[in-house]
């Protein structure tokens, strides 16, 4: 028998579509029945064949409707995107079947069977996720162990920050400069003072009590602001013609890049105090900030160096021929172009920085992930690890995803300007 009589063509298009479509439909009905109603409609077949029936039906159906240039736009689209070969058809079916099988249980756990009402673990009865846990602990997840009555200070600090950042986008170009300078050099001190307190009638809150998502933001924001200039200077140092400066920069960069952050944090926790005069105490948070900043600065330096290397030599020569000195050349000509070139790299470094902040748990500071760890060991809330980590993961994911999208947009925007 010649198999090619089964190959569809334009003449009997409709009958092939009808037969193929029916077969695919049978496959889908089979899988839907078996995954939602736990009844196997092909149970009369041997075990293994019955397991594969939806796949076989679907494959054969897709084979029948695979017609090149059928003239039907929808069919052509389906064929090129999902059904271009037997292998692709198999992949399509497998993906769809996996989605049918695994998405509904996940959705059930997340939403339909989940518990939202109530205040204790005992209110979670329906078997899905216990979002009550998140609801009850949300305050702690955001503010850590910061006293409840003082939390307005954190709110104010972050609100002002957002307002200032927002303002810097909308005010005329002339004032933008001042806002940015204020944001970079003055605001961090004000914000830190507001949160830590101690003066101006504000109650002192020790850094051990800071925590949760706000600490994640504080650590990332400070490290972000500080690592950028240090990284730039290191990058310039690595490209310097002066050997002492070049080798110092190389040594510094490679030292930090060669070790994991966790050992750097260990170092800041146990080794660094040994290097200071006896009796001096540097706050834990400050030590962590220094460690993370130096660590990320080394990565930033390599990113910036990439931009510096990518600039054509002519830019340097042109700047020199205008009689510019080293610093003027770099600040007015080289760096603005180089930094623009490496925006994706800078964004990636920032993303890595945000993703690294949970590591500060090794010195006993608890940001979001650390607070989840703390909450799930609370005797009243045992067994809530899944909810806690899913929540924390979701929060981090949203932050990182938005950041990466923003950097992609920024990259596109700056590209068109060139």
């Amino acid at each position, binding site marked *: 028998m010649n198999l090619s009589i089964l190959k569809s063509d334009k003449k009997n298009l409709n009958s092939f579509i009808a037969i193929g479509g029916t077969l695919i439909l049978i496959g889908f009905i089979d899988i839907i029945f078996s995954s939602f109603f736990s009844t196997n409609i092909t149970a009369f077949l041997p075990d293994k064949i019955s397991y594969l029936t939806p796949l076989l039906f679907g494959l054969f159906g897709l084979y029948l409707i695979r017609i090149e240039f059928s003239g039907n736009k929808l069919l052509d689209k389906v064929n090129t995107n999902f059904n271009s070969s037997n292998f*692709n058809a198999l992949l399509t079916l497998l993906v769809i079947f996996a989605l049918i099988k695994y998405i509904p249980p996940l959705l059930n756990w997340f939403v339909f069977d989940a518990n939202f009402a109530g205040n204790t673990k005992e209110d979670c009865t329906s078997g899905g996720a216990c979002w009550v846990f998140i609801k009850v602990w949300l305050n702690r997840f955001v503010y850590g162990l910061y006293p409840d009555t003082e939390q307005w200070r954190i709110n104010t600090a972050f609100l002002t920050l957002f307002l200032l950042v927002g303002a810097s986008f909308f005010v005329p170009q002339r004032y933008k400069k001042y806002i940015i300078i204020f944001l970079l050099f003055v605001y961090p001190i004000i914000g830190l003072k507001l949160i830590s307190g101690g003066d101006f009638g504000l109650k002192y809150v020790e850094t051990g009590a800071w925590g949760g998502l706000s600490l994640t933001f504080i650590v990332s924001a400070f490290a972000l602001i500080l690592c950028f200039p240090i990284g730039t200077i290191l990058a310039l140092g690595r490209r310097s013609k002066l050997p*002492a400066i070049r080798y110092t920069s190389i040594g510094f960069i*490679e030292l930090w*890049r060669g*070790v994991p952050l*966790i050992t750097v944090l260990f170092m800041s926790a146990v080794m660094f105090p040994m290097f200071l005069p006896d009796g001096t105490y540097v706050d834990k948070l400050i030590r962590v900030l220094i460690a993370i900043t130096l660590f990320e600065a080394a990565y930033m330096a390599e990113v910036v160096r990439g931009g510096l290397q990518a600039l054509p030599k002519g830019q340097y020569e042109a700047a020199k021929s205008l009689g510019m000195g080293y610093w003027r050349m770099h600040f007015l000509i080289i760096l603005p172009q180089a930094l623009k070139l490496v925006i994706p790299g800078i964004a990636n470094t920032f993303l890595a920085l945000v*993703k690294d902040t949970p590591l500060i748990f090794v010195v006993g500071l608890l940001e979001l992930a650390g607070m989840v760890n703390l909450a799930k060991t609370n005797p009243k809330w045992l067994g809530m690890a899944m909810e806690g980590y899913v929540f924390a993961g979701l929060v*981090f994911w949203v932050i990182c995803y938005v950041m990466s999208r923003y950097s992609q947009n920024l990259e596109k925007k700056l590209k068109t300007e060139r």
Partner: protein
Amino acid sequence: MNFKNLKLNLSNKNKDLIPQILTVLFLILVVIYFTINAQSNMGNRGISFGFGFLSQESSFDITFSLIDYDGSHTYARAFLVGLLNTILVSVIGIFFATILGVTIGIARLSQNYLVAKSAEWYVEIFRNIPLILQIFFWYFAALRALPLTVDSINFYDISFLNVKGWYVPKFVWTNFSIFLYSIVFSFILIYFLGKYAQKQRDKFGKQIPTLYISILLIIGLPLLSFLIGGVSLSFEIPVLTQLSKTVYVYRGGVSIIPELISLALALSMYTATFIAENVRAGILGVSKGQKEAAASIGLTKGQILKLVVMPQALRIIIPPTTNQYLNLTKNSSLAAAIAYPDIVLVFAGTALMQTGRAIEIISITMLTYLSLSLSISVFMNWYNKKMAIKEK
């Protein structure tokens, strides 16, 4: 003699010298300051700087070790145990991350819309969640949901998965060394075969099916060692034994602890996203013209992939991927968070707590990682130089 020029040069030199001297001076001062403080601090605590403690008895236990170890061994041995555990999890992670990453990287370029989208979402999801959270998730949430020892998940009666870990059969070899020699020997043969094939190709334009012969060699020689070399292999299957009324354990076999499973899972799934992006960039980086040119001189599809696309794509893929391997190795230090006994937990954690020798221990730990990184980056530089396109 042109004195004017000489003077100019001198002043230029001075201009260059001053910042350098200042830098060096600053560095020396910092080092001196730190040393003096460290000395006085250690003096106050009654300890002196030195690495003698490494040969002392460690007197702590390690839950998972590849070599013989107990409390009576030295700190140096504990360090070795930690290092081996780090290497173990890194090698496992690299192996699976590569497989997963390459698959997903290729899937992202698939014509199949569903496959490409699924791969894209995999990358977007797992890349944007902090690795430490993923480790926590697998260890504290996912693996804790596994059944108890009594009703373990059974894989064909030879391997069992439960909340205590994964029990797999142990390989019991006789004459293992002969088997090893046969593998090494087959690799040597393959190396010479490759050389010979290249010579034949360059000289006579003859194609030798290197791949098939290599596969034959690498399967055939070890098989031969089984048949005539006296090598034999048997499996020790873990068996469920009852200790008391409610306590069950698996005896025999190899137990893979959940810390290792969750760490390897998280590391490979996280790193795979970055490798996938590298693979995608590498394949996209080979220009269409190359493929068309190869097709126009009559190469088959397989030949195009093997001789034209892959060599060029690999040149783009390998450097950043090596970097990712290095990152994975460094990230394996997060093991400390779930008490997998790697070098950070064993040495910079337990050993440091016991001896109080912060400076020595942290320096050794950092130096270990540093030498690992530096050796890989030296290798990378060598590789890049070797693979760089020699145009001019």
